[in-house]
């Protein structure tokens, strides 16, 4: 509970305006890399071809990005989640895929040594890794940046940015939780926005950039995810050991616009997802240790929009249209096949959709009427404000985004250093 309250904006979740999706937006130094599952995938041609045609940016291609992917991978310890430690949930996933003739592959994770022989359960690492295995930026990039002179200011919420000729002014509130903030102002020759899809869009909208950048806040995607459960007679122990082992690698699933992964969550989150209330809900929770769990992650096509309400409050508009709902359905049907073929006595579809791959809002592109950031990672019409994170994605790739965010950030750093020379 404490990690959810304290490590996420809104004290746990933010909801879309129609409450269809619960948005999980990390609020911690290191961002998503602290709380995420650290699964690292390169984008395929399907994703990058779409990115290129939406943006007109040539380097969004496998060949052109390969050196940046290599560098990003070189900055991490990457491991396939070890087979010998796989738990009952992973075995159900693999068995169900085999019985249904679906293709699957091992997941690759940024982890150094999870020390499974000590009995560790990676589900605990969703609140941050306590054995320094997860390759978060706190372990990788930040210490190196500090060696190069970075000064890190934590507990700062920036709310205004303004470009003034030869410098940029940023304003925000400083102070620890439980205290009213103190207003402070900083100025710099350049600013690189890295507040994520919602953070960057919100900051720029609140600073009045909406008028000159018509695409600001638009093209927002989340890969809506739905966890579905199979209830088994024997204990599954889905919470023990590695949390995830496998992903779908089925070309049919990719064509249909969804992917599947074995996953699980702690009791408080599972209770949120279980439909119903009262004694019936409690009886379901009694089966917690007998749940197999697979999530369907939708490659969403219907873009959302981040905007500010009349009082300046954040509004996240994001609806699943008929295509997106069909993608969810197709994934849920495949999960049902998997569970039933493995002997589940019941299949339960999770109640709440989750958005945790938050992408877009400041899309990269060549056309200033349809994008926010140019191919040089600089805001259209600006020479000193840059963006290099998930906010620049022009579409939903349908693949875990973190490695590509890192690769594009390396590419951005070259452009920005070049511009600064």
């Amino acid at each position, binding site marked *: 509970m404490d990690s959810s309250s304290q490590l996420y904006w809104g004290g746990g*979740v933010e909801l879309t305006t129609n409450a269809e999706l619960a948005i999980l937006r990390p609020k911690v130094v290191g961002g998503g890399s602290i709380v995420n599952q650290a699964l690292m995938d390169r984008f395929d041609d399907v994703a990058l071809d779409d990115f290129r045609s939406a943006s007109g940016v040539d380097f969004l291609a496998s060949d052109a990005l390969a050196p940046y992917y290599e560098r990003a991978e070189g900055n991490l310890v990457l491991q396939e989640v070890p087979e010998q430690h796989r738990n009952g949930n992973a075995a159900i996933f693999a068995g169900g895929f085999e019985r249904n003739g679906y293709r699957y592959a091992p997941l690759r994770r940024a982890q150094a040594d999870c*020390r499974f022989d000590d*009995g560790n359960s990676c589900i605990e690492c969703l609140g941050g890794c306590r054995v320094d295995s997860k390759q978060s930026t706190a372990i990788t990039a930040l210490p190196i940046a500090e060696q190069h002179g970075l000064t890190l200011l934590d507990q700062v919420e920036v709310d205004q940015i303004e470009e003034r000729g030869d410098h940029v002014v940023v304003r925000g509130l400083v102070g620890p939780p439980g205290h009213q903030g103190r207003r402070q102002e900083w100025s710099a020759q350049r600013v690189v926005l890295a507040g994520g899809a919602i953070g960057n869009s919100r900051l720029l909208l609140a600073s009045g950039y909406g008028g000159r950048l018509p695409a600001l806040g638009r093209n927002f995607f989340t890969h809506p995810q739905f966890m579905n459960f199979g209830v088994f007679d024997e204990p599954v122990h889905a919470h023990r050991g590695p949390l995830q082992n496998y992903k779908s690698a089925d070309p049919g699933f990719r064509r249909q616009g969804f992917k599947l992964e074995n996953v699980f969550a702690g*009791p408080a989150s599972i209770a*949120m997802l279980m439909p119903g209330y009262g*004694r019936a809900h409690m009886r379901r929770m009694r089966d917690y240790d007998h749940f197999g769990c697979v999530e369907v992650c939708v490659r969403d096509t219907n873009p959302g929009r981040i905007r500010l309400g009349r009082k*300046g409050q954040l509004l996240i508009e994001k609806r699943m249209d008929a295509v997106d709902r069909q993608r969810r359905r197709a994934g849920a049907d495949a999960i049902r096949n998997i569970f039933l073929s493995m002997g589940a006595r019941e299949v339960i579809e999770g109640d709440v959709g989750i958005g945790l791959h938050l992408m877009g809002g400041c899309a990269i592109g060549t056309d200033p009427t349809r994008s926010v950031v140019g191919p040089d990672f600089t805001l259209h019409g600006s020479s000193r404000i840059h963006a290099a994170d998930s906010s620049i994605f022009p579409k939903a790739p349908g693949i875990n985004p973190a490695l590509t965010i890192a690769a594009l950030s390396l590419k951005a750093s070259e452009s920005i250093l070049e511009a600064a020379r």
Partner: protein
Amino acid sequence: MSTDSQTPSGMPRAGLPAEAPVGLTPAQQRGLLRLGDVVIPGDGDLPSFSESGCADGIDRMLPYMYEADRSSLLTLLEACARLPRPAIRRIVAIAAAADRFPEPAAGVFRLANIGIKGVVQSLYWSDIGTGGVHLVIGHDATINEAAYEAALKETER
């Protein structure tokens, strides 16, 4: 919220909680227990929401909520302190069946459902002072930090 914690555009401060300690009034506490017992009435060796003692944990949640969410929650809890139990049950039932209603009503009920679950279910199933609900359902996830610390010391030597 003081003007100091407002942005120049009047945007409410999103990330950090207010300075004054945020807690429930006695009426709000009563409302939370009554609402909680409808959602979690107890079942055999699983205690009810009020029996579990988890409600005190709300003080660890409230400070991190957005002001608007917090005040909607407090209003709901005040209502639950006064409403007859069947009315609370009706609210919970409608919220849980949100998708059976047409939009935009469905959206409002979904919001209520997630809000109620987010507080009641999270407090109870986080097992803070609930006398071992994790044990009852078989959740025993751990990280062996002692072994890690010992290994670190070993490599430092």
